[in-house]
């Protein structure tokens, strides 16, 4: 990067960071968050849950191994903007198809590097996630701070409609089809679908606005509530549908945003974390057995434990801050986790939740047969 152009990142509280522009030229606003994964920037960029957010990677060197088609978690990158310490000018990997810089340019994602990302992260850690504006066009601090302040806050923001599929589509099972799963797409990551498919599930992915009646009419063996961006509190209508789905007795499994929506459907509340959990190293305790799994996280909201009714059991908690990471209904075949068993990026420790869901569907089928 011999020809460097300046870029500016401004936070709503007035703090600014000057650096070098890379990726696409342009200007974007969004919620400023950070992710602590040391690998997997491509999965982060393409995770629909990052819609509406400018993501800062805490690991300073990003782009080293380039970008490839196989590691995409959706059809396109969703982050608004990207902040790193040092972007790699070259991609070194047998899997690389293009450099990260070229990829971001192709998808019109503005990025900034050569900024003190650790200072930025500490700022957000201490003061909370906040709105920000990133620009390679407007380099005036006051002006950019004003733009950050004028942008939409994440609270009460509905983003599922932005990232969800327009119309239903099917993903076939790998090998023999054993189950049919309907997936509510609030911003689903491809790896969740891959996991289901690999376990013999045909998946029908439906738009976020699909009614419970329409979903149940598909006669699914199980219903999957995907991850996704935005504030679960802004999803009142969807929550009503989910409540009906869950109470239908059809095995239901929620991940991340899906977990939060389930929590609300059961009458619980959700709240915004100060700066969220985003990374691949979070310790989650499974309370019943006392084992710890290292898990991939990406959430800015959480379910309030004390808001849940007695019939909902908190099964998993985060050992860093004790927040709810998993729950199950004591009577209904419904469970959810706040984190990402599909990983991508991150450790595979929690992959068993997909098998757990398969078992639930098996039991449910046998019960019907029996």
């Amino acid at each position, binding site marked *: 990067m011999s020809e460097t152009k300046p870029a500016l990142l401004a936070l709503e509280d007035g703090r600014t960071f000057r650096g070098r522009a890379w990726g696409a030229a342009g200007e974007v606003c969004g919620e400023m968050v950070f992710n602590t*994964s*040391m690998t997997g920037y491509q999965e982060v960029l393409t995770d629909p849950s990052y819609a509406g957010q400018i993501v800062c990677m*805490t690991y300073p*060197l990003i782009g080293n*191994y380039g970008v490839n088609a196989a590691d995409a978690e959706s059809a396109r990158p969703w982050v608004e903007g990207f902040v790193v310490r040092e972007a790699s*000018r070259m991609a070194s990997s047998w899997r690389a198809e293009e450099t990260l810089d070229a990829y971001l340019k192709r998808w019109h994602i503005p990025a900034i590097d050569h900024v*003190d990302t*650790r200072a930025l992260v500490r700022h957000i850690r201490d003061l909370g996630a906040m709105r920000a504006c990133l620009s390679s066009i407007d380099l005036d601090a006051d002006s950019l701070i004003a733009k950050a302040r004028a942008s939409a806050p994440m609270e009460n923001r509905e983003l599922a409609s932005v990232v969800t599929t327009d119309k239903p589509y099917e993903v076939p099972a790998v090998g023999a089809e054993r189950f049919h799963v309907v997936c509510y797409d609030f911003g689903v990551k491809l790896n969740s679908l891959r996991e289901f498919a690999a376990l013999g599930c045909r998946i029908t992915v439906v738009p976020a606005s699909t009614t419970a009646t329409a979903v149940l009419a598909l006669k699914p063996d199980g219903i999957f509530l995907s991850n996704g961006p935005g504030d679960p509190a802004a999803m009142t209508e969807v929550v009503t549908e989910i409540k009906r789905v869950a109470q239908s007795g059809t095995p239901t499994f929620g991940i991340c945003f899906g977990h939060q929506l389930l929590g609300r459907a059961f009458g619980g509340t959700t709240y915004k974390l100060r700066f969220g959990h985003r990374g691949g190293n979070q310790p989650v305790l499974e309370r019943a057995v006392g084992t710890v799994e290292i898990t991939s996280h990406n959430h800015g909201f959480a379910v309030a434990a004390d808001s849940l009714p007695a019939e909902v059991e908190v099964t998993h908690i985060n*050992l860093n801050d004790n927040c709810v990471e998993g729950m199950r209904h004591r009577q209904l075949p419904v469970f959810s986790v706040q984190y990402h068993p599909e990983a991508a990026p991150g*450790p595979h420790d929690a992959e068993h939740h997909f098998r757990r869901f398969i078992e639930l569907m098996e039991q449910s089928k046998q019960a019907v047969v029996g």
Partner: protein
Amino acid sequence: MPKRTDISKILIIGSGPIVIGQACEFDYSGTQACKALKQEGYEVVLVNSNPATIMTDPEMADRTYIEPLTLESVAAIIRREKPDALLPTVGGQTALNLSIALADAGVLDECGVELIGAKREAVKIAEDRQLFKQAMDEAGLPMPRGGFARSWAEAEQIVEETDYPAIIRPSFTLGGTGGGIAFNPEEYEEIVRNGLAASPIHEVLIEESILGWKEFELEVMRDLHDNVVIICSIENFDPMGVHTGDSITVAPAQTLTDVEYQKLRDMSITIIRKVGVETGGSNIQFAVNPRNGDIRVIEMNPRVSRSSALASKATGFPIAKIAAKLAVGYTLDEIPNDITQKTPASFEPTIDYVVAKIPKWNFEKFRDAEDVLGTQMKSVGEVMAIGRTFKEALFKGLRSLEAVKPLRLANVPADELQRKLARPNSQRFSYITYALQHGVPIEEIYRLSGIDPWFLAQLQDVMHVQDRIEGRTLEEIEPAALLEAKEVGLSDRRVAYLTKRTEDEVRAHRKRLGLVPVYKRVDTCGAEFESYTPYLYSTYEEEDEVAPTDRRKIMILGSGPNRIGQGIEFDYCCCHASFALRDAGFETIMVNCNPETVSTDYDTSDRLYFEPLTFEDVMNIVDTERPEGIIVQFGGQTPLNLAMRLDDAGAPIIGTSPDSIDLAEDRKRFGALLNELGVPQPENGTATSSPEAIREAARIGYPVLVRPSYVLGGRAMAIVYDEKSLDEYMRTAVEASPERPVLIDKFLERAAEFDVDALADETATVIAGIQEHIEEAGIHSGDSSCVLPAVRIAEEHIETMRHYTRILARALKVKGLINIQFAIKDDRVYVLEVNPRASRTVPFVSKATGVPLARIAALVMAGVRPLKDFNLPDDLTVARFFVKSPVFPFVKFPGVDPILGPEMHSTGEVMGVGESFGEAYAKAMLGAGLRLPASGTAFISVNDSDKGQAVVLARRLARLGFTLMATVNTAARLREVGLEVETVFKVNEGRPNIVDHIKQGEIALIINTPLGRASHYDEQAIRRAALQHNVPCVTTMTGAQALVDAIIAQAETQTHPVTLQELHDSPKSKVQSPKSNAAFVFRP
């Protein structure tokens, strides 16, 4: 799960002396384990033969044995102590092997000792290649294809599996000699047949070639609840084919996608479970094919390792400490993360910086060794550096190596360049930068070296940054370009070199521009949580997290990378200074860049700066911290070399003044002082050219000892007997200059040498120990065994040495430690060298006397208490005989003559404790890995002047039942006095000759003093053969006498292990030195 209450007494085995491949990282891990277990209320019993370790400090364990790490010796300790459990995983391969040997021998069962951390079966699977391969096969994990062949027929089968190229490694040959890579069937047959012949057990290992694959390591931890976490991933800069200890390594992995990384992570978890390592840390190595991502599992170490020490320092996650806690039953989620305090240890550290480790080699000390790197580790130490980018970390690391000259090659011929890029060697890095600067494309360098293009591009970036400032004046360089140079880790010194200015000018200019570093914290979590531990590194960025306190503070400069001549002993001293001053209420600040050490544990000092020990980096910290005092006298030559400049820059150096330090180093000033005091020193002079040297030597009289100024460990030091050799030395061995003249001393032949350590200030002088060297003058003090108390010296000379020590300490206004080397010849005591600083022998003397010299010195230096208030006697005494013996790395350097001389070659030391000198020496020899024979054939071949003493020795050996064998002249002399002796051929006299006998295993002991140039080849062949077959071989008469004493002691005395605590707490100690009971009195 809470900790176990069914065990209360735990034995920890250390790793013994520092050797290549096993250095102070195991003092770090062992110390952590001791501390952690003691903290949990367990009674800790420790055994280690290395006195220079922190772990063997009496406070670290409840009961400390400094005893040889042999089956018999540790079995005796177990029978005495009856511990409930043995933790075998924190003392390197030595402790692991010994623990398994103890289990196999039934000692553990007999005494009811449980192995905790790793069970016997798990260790066997991990360590035995066949069992490990079987386990990996069962788990469906790929290992390099291949196997062992004991015949050509077997080899023909194996190659079907491996295909070409195939790697052939004969078993049990020195330095892997006799192996090679076969690219076709003819080559294959030739190498296999040669290899089978070269291997003493006629076995070769044949494997598919994975040379050039990328190499990764993962550090894994597991607890009894089967929770598994990965602490750190490490990527090797050098691809497969170079030992990871000889490779530049980087954390975290840089060139793996998440998909690939998670595959390695999953495999690591499968492996630790499959092998069955119950708790603690393991290191797993992988090779990854850069062309298609194929993976091979290379090996796993079921214990903490060099890499886990690096991973601990790189992440802030203390693997050994946590491993110790897991071994007693805790689970990861029950242990808090020290650094964040609020989160548990059951997580995976994430880092927001880059860590580079660079090996330090000492090839210059092994002149006949080929500078080639392979699967046998050759480096003697390492540095680690932290930066926010790879470039910054790497270049900080490079300056941490303390290279004498800026690394830059000139006029490299194309064929040499190609060869040096393709064949790994200690200088390859310089050749890569040369190639980049001369326009060799990255693809070509990659093709030759196999080093990932990403790394090469990083280097190229730095070369471009250099290009932007080179040849310009400092003033015309834009501040942004200078900032960029600092951001990529270029030192002020480098910038000065590129702009032809002085480092001071660059520094001043840089500060004028406001270009100063900030300090960031290592916090295990990428800043997600607040850090409560000031573990800091510098970088050129915006935000400073340094937050200095306004407490009274003392800064201690460490000793940098281990190297021959400057090792763990100095780290020991630095740690002690920190402990003492912390206890005295100071805030202690440690600066060091060696990841292996206890000093770079964030627990050791109040604040840790993981930074290079250069003037620039140290002054930056001084500017930030404004300490009340700086200790430069404890870290060896590294900080001492900075003393004058720091002092000139106004940094508050405490203790003996830099001026006194300089006085002792400066030939002229020092000579004048000795004259004034009436203290004799050998006749000496200096020279900057060969004619001048010849003139000086003629005046002084041959033989002379010659050496360059300001060197460490006797680098390029030589004894020269005539004009011709002196001329050769001056023209080839050294570069002399007016600032750095060659020093010429009269060599005192056959003199006895002594090392004296003392504490002093204006109120008192305490002679801590007068150590007598076993080897006579001419052998580097670090390579000679020594004994406390002196055993063969008249009291009057001891008194003279005490007197000289006192007047020198006073004259140099010593405040702290002083070390003086004396020689005694013809009843006259000479001063050879005065070092007003901590010496290599401080830990040894401290362990022997029970008086913590470095601690006291630190308190004296900081003005906490005057020396007299410690109420120490004027002369410390010892309750037993204590022998310190060196260990050598010759076995790692094929082709090098393992002879002792004025240039130091040893890497580490052991201590032997005994009721007699012989017993102590025997234990020291055993600790150093030499089994003394009780009987057999003793071969004697000595020069004329040694023949008188040889007769005495031969008699004693004959009386012990040894059969005598000698070369013709020595044999004749022995027969003259009526001894029965067999004459044997020298190497060039016919067959079978002495070397044949050694190789046949017929020789138990070799006494061979140099006969001169003519027989050099013969002697070298004998020494190499002795080394290979582990036959004791002594090359000095004093060494031979000591060895015979030891053999007698071994035959006559039953030894009983005793703890340091017993030695120093008993009323018998500190009262009276034992009387010399050596079987001979040697008067020089």
